[in-house]
């Protein structure tokens, strides 16, 4: 990792941190390219089902490979890398253990490779959304989480600041809670028949909202003040959102199984708390947007800021949409249609992925002293925004039509036929998104091992957190 020049002030621990962050981001980028390439193949199969036949490329095996690689290859690795960096900088300390960080990275990658291979060979734990990997593979992932939790906690424990900055609340919490999620998902004793349905509802929701959401919010809380050189609008609001999110979110998993034979009270509780989720979501979003108040004109000059802005909008719109979807009257139409697929891309892509990109563009150049080019930034940004917009809109419209076809009692095949144009539009959006990832990979290369566009002057890397 010696090649990563840190411009000027190259203290050994700075260089080690830059090395860790670079390795995590590069690794995550490789997974992003892989996972979304599979995504494009899947999208193509909706129009050409006989394309790429045979067991190893069949739809039902590639589908979980796509989702798991996105979740546990790309997003998890990227978020953990950024969380380390944020912890070190906001605590004005050094990483507790560089070696543990590398161990974690290896474990994440071993799990993701083993999980991918297992699924392709047909070893699936059972089409259980986001926990299809066989349990030994998920144990490796759990080990990676525990290593990360340990390293993060001890880094924060060695801080040279009085307070623990808000970002670290979210990131430490996210990693610790996810250890619990992973354990609950693996233990078999309460997962028979309908019991497993209840656990699936809990799992598929919490794995998203107690893992990706808090880590992505952690990036917002650090990167926004940094990019704007002003403190977060309200620290107290951030703390309030933290606790309300923690209490409300875990309760709403069963809204994935509305109208199922799960007990009616469980479903109703989930709906009620889905509405309560508006509190942390609106609170958090308002906090971010108010931090940006009066500075929206700068979006055009600062792509990192623009990425984060889209991420905040994705968080606001995606989460609010989630609340709306939870109502029974709307679920009766949208449930089981492609609308859900649109929703999950609005949140995982529009929110989490844009947050990651904003974080990478805001922090990685500071760590390595290398900038990506302006053209690369612009290309990445606009293709990703336009692509995901087309993707989400087409599936939302198509999914609604699909659901209405069913309500009208048309022969089932009519809903398959009616989706065709929307599948094509989804494919066009998906290809644009994939192309933007190629540009992102090029940008990452320039910020890490390649030649940057312009060397930065070394910045004293402290957020304005203490001003809050």
């Amino acid at each position, binding site marked *: 990792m010696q090649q990563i020049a840190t411009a000027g002030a190259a203290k050994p621990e700075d260089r080690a941190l830059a090395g860790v962050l670079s390795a995590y981001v590069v690794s995550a980028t490789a997974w992003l390219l892989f996972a979304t390439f599979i995504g494009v193949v899947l999208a193509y199969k909706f129009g050409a*089902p*006989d394309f790429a*036949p045979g*067991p190893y490329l*069949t*739809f*039902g*095996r590639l589908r*979980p490979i796509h989702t798991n690689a996105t979740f546990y290859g790309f997003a998890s690795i990227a978020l953990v890398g950024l969380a380390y960096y944020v912890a070190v900088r906001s605590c004005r300390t050094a990483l507790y253990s560089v070696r543990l960080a590398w161990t974690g990275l290896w474990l994440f990658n071993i799990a993701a490779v083993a999980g991918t291979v297992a699924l392709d060979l*047909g070893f*699936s*734990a*059972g*089409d259980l959304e986001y926990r299809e990997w066989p349990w030994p593979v998920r144990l490796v992932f759990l080990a990676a989480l525990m290593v990360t939790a340990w390293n993060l*906690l001890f880094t*924060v*424990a060695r801080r040279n600041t009085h307070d*623990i900055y808000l970002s670290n609340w979210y990131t*430490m*919490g996210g990693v*610790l*809670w996810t250890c*619990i999620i992973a354990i*609950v998902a693996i233990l078999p*004793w*309460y*997962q*028979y*028949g*309908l*019991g497993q*349905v*209840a*656990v*699936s509802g*809990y799992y598929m929701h*919490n794995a998203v909202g107690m893992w990706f959401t808090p880590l992505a919010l952690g990036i917002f809380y650090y990167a926004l003040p940094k990019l704007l050189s002003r403190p977060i609008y309200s620290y107290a609001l951030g703390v309030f959102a933290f606790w309300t999110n*923690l*209490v409300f979110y*875990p*309760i709403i998993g*069963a809204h*994935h199984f509305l*109208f*199922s034979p*799960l*007990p009616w009270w469980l479903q109703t509780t989930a709906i009620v708390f889905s509405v309560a989720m508006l509190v942390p979501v609106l609170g958090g979003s308002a906090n971010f947007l108010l931090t940006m108040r009066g500075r929206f004109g700068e979006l055009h000059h600062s792509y990192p800021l623009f990425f984060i802005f889209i991420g905040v909008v994705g968080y606001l719109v995606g989460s609010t949409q989630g609340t709306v979807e939870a109502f029974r009257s709307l679920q009766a139409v949208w*449930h*089981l*249609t*492609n609308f*859900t*697929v649109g929703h999950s891309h609005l949140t995982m892509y529009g929110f989490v992925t844009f947050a990651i990109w904003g974080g990478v563009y805001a922090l990685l150049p500071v760590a390595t002293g290398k900038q990506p080019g302006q053209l690369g930034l612009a290309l990445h940004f606009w293709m990703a925004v336009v692509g995901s917009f087309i993707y989400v809109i087409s599936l939302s419209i198509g999914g609604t039509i699909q659901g209405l076809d069913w*309500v009208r*009692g*048309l*022969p*089932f095949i009519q809903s*398959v*036929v009616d989706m065709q144009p929307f599948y094509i539009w989804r494919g066009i959006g998906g290809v644009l998104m994939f192309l933007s990832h190629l540009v992102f990979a090029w940008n990452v290369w320039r910020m890490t091992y390649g030649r940057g566009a312009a060397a930065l002057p070394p910045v004293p890397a402290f957020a304005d957190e203490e001003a809050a």
Partner: protein
Amino acid sequence: MKKLLLIAGGSTLVYAGLALLMGVLPGIMLSQTPPGPGVKPLTPLEAEGRAIYVANGCSYCHTQQVRPLAQDKVFGRPSAPGDFAYQTPELLGSERTGPDLTNIGARQPSAVWQYIHLYNPRAVVPESIMPSFSWMFAVVAKAPEGVSPVPVPKAFAPAKGVVVPTHEAEALLAYLMSLKQTPLPGADQMSASALPQPAPAAAAAGTAATGYDPAKGKALFSANCAVCHQESGEGLPGAFPPLKGNKAVNDDDATQHIHAVLHGVEGVVIDGVHYDSQMPPFADTLSDAEIADIIDYERSSWGNHGKPVTAKDVAAVRAKGK
């Protein structure tokens, strides 16, 4: 240190409590749900088929949960907790790119159809986007003793040899055939009281006893018959007979036609052809009026000119029994 303990430790404790409450406890309670009346464990072959279903991700396109909603009626009665006693890992699914399969063993019991469909779905449903599972079949010069070759239509069949199912396909078929809902005493009252009931299209069709509605007839035919007899009415040679120009369909005495739809057909030689596959019965899934609509559609399409029937005629044949 205290701060760190409060934030990390405190929140983790809270979360652990919630995970117990919302994940583990419902899991414990619901895992003990007793099997519903008549719900049986899978045989070894069916269980093997289920594993193949899981390995190939059928449930990313197919749900196995019938909701107590009008639009789900076509898939069977609403799923009940006792239905899932032997269903681990659970396969409820989250997307219906293809139809729900909870009751597919009753809705589409024809092994021949299932095999052709698995070999290449487009051979029976041209608009289908389901993948082909042809690797679960073998192409041999001659089918071994006691195995009937799958009558794959020419356009989809291999140039040489015949298609026979491998053990994998047989196990998968056995699993699909095991997906049959058991009757549930009082299921109707349950769903009616638990829910607001939007006016179901099917119920409306059931009351329209007078007059033949061509649009309704066509839709019902597409939904129930076209996968075998095809939209063109020409069937699939060697697998499903044509209804175009068919004797029973054009006969002015419609008894045989009605009987076929109500009770199914098996082992009847049609136009000199013996069909290995069977025609499933529709007496339990379609009302008299719906059957009359379908029959009139068949009798007035593709150049057919049979005398139309009414729901009363269907009721009369139904009353006589098998």
